């Protein structure tokens, strides 16, 4: 029964025996479905962004195209597709024209390993090295940005491209390091009773789907129908954000920087660089960058969902799949898809929320934040997690002690982290302000005597007031 769903989605078309035409067909289906998904997702997200920011800013947002402005972004995309492809004469033509595709390609490639539900997904979802692949793909984006910055032959674009190169490379490190804590957890949990095992004990996993499964394996069938229905394959008390909240925050912050979203949107800072590396682009090439940005937003949110928020698990999914009938499996897939999209869009909402709240950082403060705060914090997390595991193992204590202690330390670390960031910011600010304060003390010694010169006699106002009308 399931094979119908699988083959329709191009999952196993090219498996056995290898057939070049089927493989090409599979590729086309995969590409079109991903591109369609990114397009739709971007259209929805842009509309959501405009509407949500409208609410936060006491205005309506788009209203006139379609009912309640719902077709606004559809119309926008239509306009962009039909627009003339303009490029200035002095651009480096090949680089300029290629840059949007180079930016977009890794985004599409990254989607190949994202499972949307137990069966909806592409062949890549089975990839055992999912996280490494995703991180590699998101690092490639920077090439497209630099190409755009260089090829435009525009000073604003160049500055934007270089800023973005520095920023994306710097934030790549804490982003990866933040995920290592989760991977260490999988190797602790794997092989425990009830949890899946990967070969010998102590070996974890870096496959997205397996990490997701390991977060949802803590329920043992009780035989009580309703409880099994809800909690089979859905155990929020073992989701990794409970054990690693600090890493979720750090990962998400780095994700903001990776996707060039506010408050890290320096490469395309409108008020400084006009539009950064996008300045010279228009029409569909510009739209490709835009789609790529929103695609990246979705990817960052999706990875957070898989690694920290239990992926597409939700009440009923595993139970309905276990009934082994086509109808119930289909329903389970739809349910899983809904859970997944809800979680991803909830995280995307935080992107939008942050954008409408915070001002932008300066380039040097941005680098300082990555190298002096985020990287030490993530390294420390790896060290502490490993040390606690060694101590617990050496003392022969049960695994739950490890989980509780790590979680406690990480939650404490989360609040300490917020304090650290505040303190570090004000410390650097105070240092920056020091010359101003010194000069101010000097000036206080000789305050200019301007304020004392009030004229001796201030003439009176004419007194002719009578009972007045309003």
């Amino acid at each position, binding site marked *: 029964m399931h094979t119908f769903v699988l083959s329709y989605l191009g999952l196993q078309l090219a498996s056995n025996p290898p057939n070049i035409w089927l493989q090409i067909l599979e590729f086309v289906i995969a590409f079109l479905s991903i591109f369609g998904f990114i397009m739709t997702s971007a259209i929805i997200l842009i509309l959501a962004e405009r509407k949500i*920011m409208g609410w*936060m*800013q*006491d*205005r309506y947002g788009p209203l006139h195209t379609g009912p309640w402005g719902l077709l606004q972004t559809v119309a926008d995309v239509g306009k962009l597709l039909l627009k003339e492809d303009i490029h200035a004469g002095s651009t480096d033509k090949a680089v300029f024209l290629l840059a949007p595709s180079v930016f977009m390609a890794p985004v599409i490639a990254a989607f190949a390993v994202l499972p949307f539900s137990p069966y909806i997904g592409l062949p890549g979802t089975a990839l055992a090295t999912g996280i490494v692949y995703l991180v590699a793909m998101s690092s490639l984006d920077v090439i497209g940005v630099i190409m755009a910055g260089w090829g435009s032959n525009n*000073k*604003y674009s160049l*500055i934007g491209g270089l800023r973005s190169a520095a920023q994306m490379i710097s934030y790549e490190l804490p982003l990866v390091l933040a995920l290592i804590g989760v991977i260490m957890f999988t190797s602790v949990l794997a092989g425990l009773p009830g949890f899946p095992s990967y070969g010998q004990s102590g070996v974890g996993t870096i496959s997205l789907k397996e990490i997701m499964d390991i977060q949802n394996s803590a329920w043992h069938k009780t035989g009580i129908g309703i409880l099994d229905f809800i909690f089979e394959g859905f155990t929020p008390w073992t989701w990794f954000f409970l054990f690693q909240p600090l890493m979720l925050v750090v990962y998400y912050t780095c994700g903001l920087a990776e996707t060039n979203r*506010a*408050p890290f949107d*320096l490469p395309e800072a*409108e*008020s*400084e660089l*006009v539009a950064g590396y996008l300045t010279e682009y228009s029409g569909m090439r510009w739209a490709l960058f835009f789609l790529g940005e929103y695609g990246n937003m979705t990817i960052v949110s999706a990875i957070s969902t898989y690694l920290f928020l239990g992926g597409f698990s939700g009440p009923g999914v595993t139970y309905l799949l276990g009934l082994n009938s086509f109808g119930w499996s289909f329903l389970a897939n739809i349910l899983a898809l809904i859970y997944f999209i809800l979680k991803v869009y909830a995280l995307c909402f935080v992107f939008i929320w942050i*954008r*409408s*709240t*915070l*001002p*932008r*950082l*300066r*380039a*040097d*403060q941005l680098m300082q934040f990555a190298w002096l705060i985020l990287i030490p914090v993530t390294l420390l997390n790896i060290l502490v997690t490993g040390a606690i595991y060694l101590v617990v193992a050496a003392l022969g204590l049960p695994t739950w002690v490890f989980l509780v202690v790590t979680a406690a330390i990480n939650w404490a670390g989360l609040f300490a982290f917020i304090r650290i*960031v*505040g303190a570090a*910011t*004000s410390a650097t*600010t105070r240092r*920056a*302000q*020091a*010359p*101003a*304060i010194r*000069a*101010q003390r000097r*000036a*206080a010694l000789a*305050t*200019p005597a*301007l*304020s004392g010169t*009030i*004229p001796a006699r*201030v*003439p*009176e*106002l*004419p*007194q*002719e*007031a*009578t*009972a*007045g*009308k*309003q």
Partner: protein
Amino acid sequence: MATNQQINAGVEGAEGTQSQEMLLNMGPQHPSTHGVLRLVLTLEGETVVDCTPVIGYLHRGIEKILENRPYMGGIRYMDNCDYLSPMLNETAYVGAVEQLMGIEPPRRAQYIRLLTNELQRIASHLVGIGTYLMDLGAVTPILWCFRDREGILSLFEALGGSRFNVNYLRVGGVLHDFPKNWLKECSAFLDQLEKNMVELEGLITGNEIFEARTQGVGYIDPQQALAYGLTGPMLRASGVNWDLRVNRPYMAYREIPVRPQVRQEGDCFARYKVRVQEIYESIRLCREAIDKLPGGPIGTRTPIALRPPRGETYFALESSKGEQGVYLISDGSEYPWRAKVRGPSFVNLQILPELLRGHKMSDTIAILGSLDIVLGEVDR
């Protein structure tokens, strides 16, 4: 402040690579040069080595126009001078003509002027704060500020018939008395504004990123501020207690005392903070003016064709940006022989190259925004 040696040291890269300074034309078409200011920046990497502001893209010859209009006709052109605070410009011009003619407008007219001036000051500061935060990359405050400013513009529309270029003041008084219920609406608006300001400050003032971007950036010490002839919030943010409403009180400010808002830090944050505090102070002044509003006529009878006696005069008031002065020479005819407008933005802009040197390029916009200039008035 980067010296030549430091700059040269930066140029000599490692292993025979060469780098050179980049000349960047920021403006006149740029999202955040507050109109059509053009900055020619010399950049070393992202550090500003030198900056030359180029002005004049919005020159409309307002002073010349004033010389070719009857005295009453000039009021409308003063609106376009600093287009974010037309009411204050009008007051300055009208005040100069009255001084020339020796007219003292009636009490009620003076109170109405104070009330409208303070409302205009709030509106101008709201735009100043909103665009400043926009320059720093925050997108929400500007819309909140414009929402509040909208209330003031509606009040002006009810008062003078026009939202922006109000053309409400007249030599010797004002155009109309308040329409029905105007004062009630004004009080309600002020209450609402006070609440909104608390909300706005909650969004901005304590924000670590905002503080890191503004504190210690663009420092002006008091001596420097005086040497450059700065006025208004920029001067008061540098610790110099100078406010024309207090030190040279004019019109109804002789009866309603103003508490000048002074900060000692002298940086962008202080300038922002002074503007916010001045909004609160203006709200207080408006309320006091409404409470004390006297009855009586709203203007003295003046001939349509004013012919002030021969002579010259200078009248200055505290505008939202600083000292807004008007200098008039009369030869006894219907037209001023010479009119000169002393614009605070024009004078305040002079210090920009001094402030920018050695700062990062992102700070260029942050510092320029904190000056709160209006190009309509710089270029006139």
